[in-house]
């Protein structure tokens, strides 16, 4: 475990020293300014709109950050020539994958907390409030969704180059976000091969809609059932493990630096 934490620590130092966290500060400032100036049709005092727009922005920004941070970790090691000296130490490829994933996920979670804090601040300035228990549940589930997204990005980056892995992760996660909740309705009319395909996709892709408590927060519906929440967290853990295992399978026999070998 200490090796995994050491590798994750290097990911953190990389982000901090390259001043990439300053991007986060810019995003936060933009988010806050946008939310505070939100005044469509004179509805500036309706905090529900601020909550809705703010939480949507948090989901979009954290989605982008999670993918961009996780997807580059392994290809970057190869590109800068640090992979071979790293693997020449008693570090297994699984340890490397877990360390990179943990580093990317933890830094995205920190950003997530900052985003939620900014939205909370904007809502508070506008005179509104959040149910704190529901907010805590929303952050927990959101962090779990980011774990899943990061693992998916790492898995793609083991076999694809950085750009291809980024595009593929965006496509797969977008499809999962937008299409998966509609599949049950589509299944009613689908027949034959189309029906089987939709059915397979429904169970194969991760269900991100399970992690989204935005409506509960916006409309003050109160907190979710804790047992259900625990089940969703377990689902996230399971799916993350599946994607990290796939990443390991894709990486364990991979050859490096073919050009340098001969």
């Amino acid at each position, binding site marked *: 475990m200490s090796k995994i934490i050491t590798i994750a620590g290097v990911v953190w130092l990389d982000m901090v020293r390259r001043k990439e966290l300053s991007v986060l500060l810019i995003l936060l400032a933009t988010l806050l300014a946008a939310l505070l100036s939100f005044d469509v049709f004179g509805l500036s005092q309706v905090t529900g709109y601020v909550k809705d727009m703010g939480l949507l922005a948090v989901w979009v920004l954290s989605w982008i950050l999670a993918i961009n941070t996780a997807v580059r970790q392994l290809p970057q090691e190869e590109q800068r020539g*640090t992979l071979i*000296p790293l693997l020449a130490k008693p570090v297994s490829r699984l340890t490397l994958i877990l360390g990179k994933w943990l580093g990317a996920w933890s830094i995205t979670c920190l950003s997530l907390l900052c985003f939620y804090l900014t939205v909370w601040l904007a809502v508070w300035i506008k005179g509104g409030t959040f149910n704190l228990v529901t907010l805590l549940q929303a952050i927990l589930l959101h962090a779990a969704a980011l774990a899943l997204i990061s693992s998916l990005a790492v898995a793609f980056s083991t076999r694809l180059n950085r750009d291809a892995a980024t595009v593929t992760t965006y496509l797969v996660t977008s499809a999962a976000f937008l299409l998966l909740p509609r599949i049950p309705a589509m299944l009613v009319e689908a027949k034959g091969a189309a029906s089987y395909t939709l059915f397979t996709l429904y169970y194969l892709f991760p269900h991100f809609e399970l992690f989204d408590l935005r409506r509960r927060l916006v409309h003050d519906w109160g907190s979710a059932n804790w047992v259900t929440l625990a089940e969703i967290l377990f689902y996230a853990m399971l799916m993350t493990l599946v994607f990290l295992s796939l990443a390991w399978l894709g990486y364990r026999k991979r050859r490096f630096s073919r050009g340098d070998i001969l």
Partner: protein
Amino acid sequence: MFLAIDIQNLSVSFPAPTGTVHALRDLTVAVAPGTVYGFLGPNGAGKTTTIQVLLGFQNADQGTARLFGKPVTETIAREKIGYLAENPDTYNFLTGRELLTMAGRLFNLPASEIKTRANQLLEETGLASAADRRIAGYSRGMRQRICMAQALINDPDLLILDEPTGGLDPLGRMDIRRIIAERKKAGKTVFFSSHELSEVELACDRVAILSQGRLIAEGPVHELVAPGENLERYFIKAVTTATPEKRP
């Protein structure tokens, strides 16, 4: 007692656009503990491939490779080794001291030992005054030295060096020679590939010469090189005899 390196009948090939490239053919090499072993050959002979196999990056088509009795495919085989790559690159955003601390942690060394070893190595490599500066600001020679220090953080029983003197100035080469001599004095094994045959002649107990993936000569330097000859002449003769197309 186990051999430091035990390679038996190793063959490695790669698919290439022009057909299969046989990088190593039936290679057998045995390196006893405490030996300084030179691994020589013209470009494309298979030296780096052999090192890649020893580090577990490259799978063999056939044959076996072991480090201190452990198969190279096992992570634990790398517990006792240090490795310095040709033209080494490292994390430029870390300071020299942070790099050594990170490397020590990856070997599961206790924090107190990491601190002591790091300070000692920074002194030995002449980087003590630059220890807390970022590596991005180091010169090429300083980078080579910090990478060497990183390779030595676990006081390895086997040090693998791939072209360690390539591109270094005479002072840098002298440092590498001194480190190799110190490892030998401490009873450790050093396995290095190099084109600097005068360096090899000075430092090595035994050498192996590879050409087109085959072992064409192996033995103590004084047995291979006739009196009045030098290793460079012997090397050229051996390679051109084994592979006539290499003849100038």
